């Protein structure tokens, strides 16, 4: 069972998502509504398969999949793909899907390489609070990465429009307005998720551990990250920068967030735990 859950299924998922990527790359080059409908349906099926795998991992270890770096990366991949599938359901976006797909495949591959099997069960990682905190944090990160993807899409289309480049890229991306709305929505939701997750961790520390810090080193990184996201969200709310600059900031900050989260997760698992 271990072999199936921790090795064969993730390998199968890599294959499935690679197939899906091949379909979307073909669609990015040339429009085909029939193939697009098939690809959207295949995307839902791939999401279901991913969710089943994550559920099996959870059942196997009696804990949501947050026990290893590999599991966290895989879980993040699921959340990104869930976001993407939802967005795909709302707007037609022949090209934008490629970016999240590549991210999901890379996360899955990284998860397999780093290792998904939990050799030990860290005590602090088990229990419902931990599951809630980490799941919400990851969902928030997935939303923020989504915001970055839409920002990147908006920047590409902006360039196409201002440079009068009316090639296939121009027609394959969703409208600028839609991408900015989705970017803004993903940023707000991501901010709320990170905020609630962070607040809950503080409350937990105060109540459950009588104020004793659990992951102090990890927490200050997360708090710094929260500050950065908050400034960006406030700027979005007040529209300080305008849509184009805001999109650019979303891309830069999403990349930063990804790096910081990765760094903090790696630090946490490779001995940086306080």
């Amino acid at each position: 069972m271990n072999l199936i859950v921790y090795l064969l299924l993730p390998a199968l998922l890599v294959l499935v998502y690679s197939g899906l990527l091949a379909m979307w790359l073909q669609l990015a080059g040339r429009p085909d509504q029939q193939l697009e409908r098939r690809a959207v349906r295949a995307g839902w099926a791939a999401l279901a398969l991913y969710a089943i795998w994550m559920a099996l991992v959870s059942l196997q270890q009696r804990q949501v999949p947050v026990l290893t770096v590999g599991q966290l990366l895989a879980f993040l991949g699921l959340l990104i793909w869930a976001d993407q599938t939802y967005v795909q359901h709302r707007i037609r976006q022949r090209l934008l899907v490629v970016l999240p797909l590549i991210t999901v495949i890379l996360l899955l591959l990284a998860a397999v390489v780093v290792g998904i099997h939990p050799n030990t069960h860290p005590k602090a990682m088990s229990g419902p609070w931990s599951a809630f905190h980490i799941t919400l944090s990851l969902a928030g990160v997935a939303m923020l990465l989504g915001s970055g993807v839409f920002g990147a899409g908006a920047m590409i289309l902006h360039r196409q429009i201002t440079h009068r480049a009316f090639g296939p890229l121009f027609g394959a991306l969703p409208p600028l307005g839609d991408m900015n709305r989705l970017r803004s929505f993903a940023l707000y939701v991501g901010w709320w998720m990170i905020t609630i997750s962070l607040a809950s961790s503080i409350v937990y520390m105060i109540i459950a551990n009588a104020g004793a810090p659990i992951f102090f080193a990890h927490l200050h990184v997360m708090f710094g990250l929260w500050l950065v996201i908050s400034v960006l969200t406030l700027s979005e709310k007040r529209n300080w920068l305008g849509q184009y600059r805001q999109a650019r900031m979303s891309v830069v900050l999403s990349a930063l967030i990804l790096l910081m989260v990765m760094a903090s997760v790696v630090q946490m698992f490779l001995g940086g735990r306080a």
Partner: protein
Amino acid sequence: MKLELIGLNHTIFSAEIRGRAAINPDHLSDVVNRILENENVEGVVVLSTCNRVELYLSPKLHSSEAELRSLFADVCHLTREESFEPYIMRDAEVTQHLLRVASGLDSQFLGEVQILTQVKQAYHTALQLACTNSILNRLFLQAIECGKLVRTRTGISQGAVSVAYAAVDLAERVFGKLTDRKVLLVGAGETIQLASKYIAESGATSWRVSNRTPERAQLLADALGGEVAAWPVREEDLAWADLIVSATNSPDVVISAESVKHALAHRREPVLFLDLAVPRDVDPALQSADDIYVYCVDDFREMVEANLKLREREAVRAAKLVDREVEEFVTWYRENRIAPTIQQLQLVLEAIRTTEVENNAHRFTPEDREQMEKFSRAMMKKVTSLIVANLKRASLDKNDLSVARAVTMAFAREDQTSVKEVLEKLDHELSH
């Protein structure tokens, strides 16, 4: 195959002659009756649009070119000289042509969508007039399916191919749906009216119209449910609008870069200028910036050309799909030719089997009779399958109907009158 087509389109006649040749829908019934008076014609479908007039005929025997030209000239009011111009096609060529027409590959603007609706309409009208036969039914249904398939499987109909549409297309690329967008129209002439019509179709409901003649501005504003703005264009109106469309006859700049700079100094939302005037209304010094997009007529022409190039590329794929569909139709047609022979064969063999079983039934016990029934059915099925397989091989692969004729003759019974009809049809095909 017995199909004929005679027609004219935008490539051979001017709009004036096409207009004269077009068949008035009110007179269509008379035209069809006149065509069907000819006993050789079994079915007809008339496709008459602003770009083409075509008669699709299913005759018993092919008519001569002169007969077709005379019929077409009569129906379309063409002069003797003009009557030599229309194209004539026969059989598989007709199938290929109609499928290309329905797919938008033969249209003035490659990938035009409206033609598919017109083909559907022509077929439905023909059905109402009861002037089609099985071949025309199948041909038109296949053409309609092919038209849909080509549009869903390729990008042949994507992108705007007129300046006004391209302008609205661009607005939709920038804003998405135009439902909540504020539109400032500068000018009230034909171009602005056309552009505002397309923008309204895209959902815009909030309008201001600024024009040198306030009466004309009022008329347009009333038609759109908007309000009149002052002339010359005020900074306040520029700051209000998300989309500014300008098309005046003014020889000078109507919207200066300076006024835009002042008006949009505190604006953070995107704003799009669509300058459809020649010479330009919007100051050329005003360039696209972070959230400001400025487009003029030349840009839209470029956009239209790019879209046409994209469509041309897609046309190659579309043509392959059409060829596949034509092949499917030809296969169906060839199968259809031998269907009466197969039916005849099955009837005769079944009659022989039933008679023999009944005549010999008294020799067997009830259980054995059941076995005999099963055995005789299985045997006849195998014999029939073998003959049908050979028939199809000859008819479909080699297009040879002599085997079908021989089988019909071999299994003909004296008391069957239908055989004569089957043989007649086969002879027609063979003579062709």
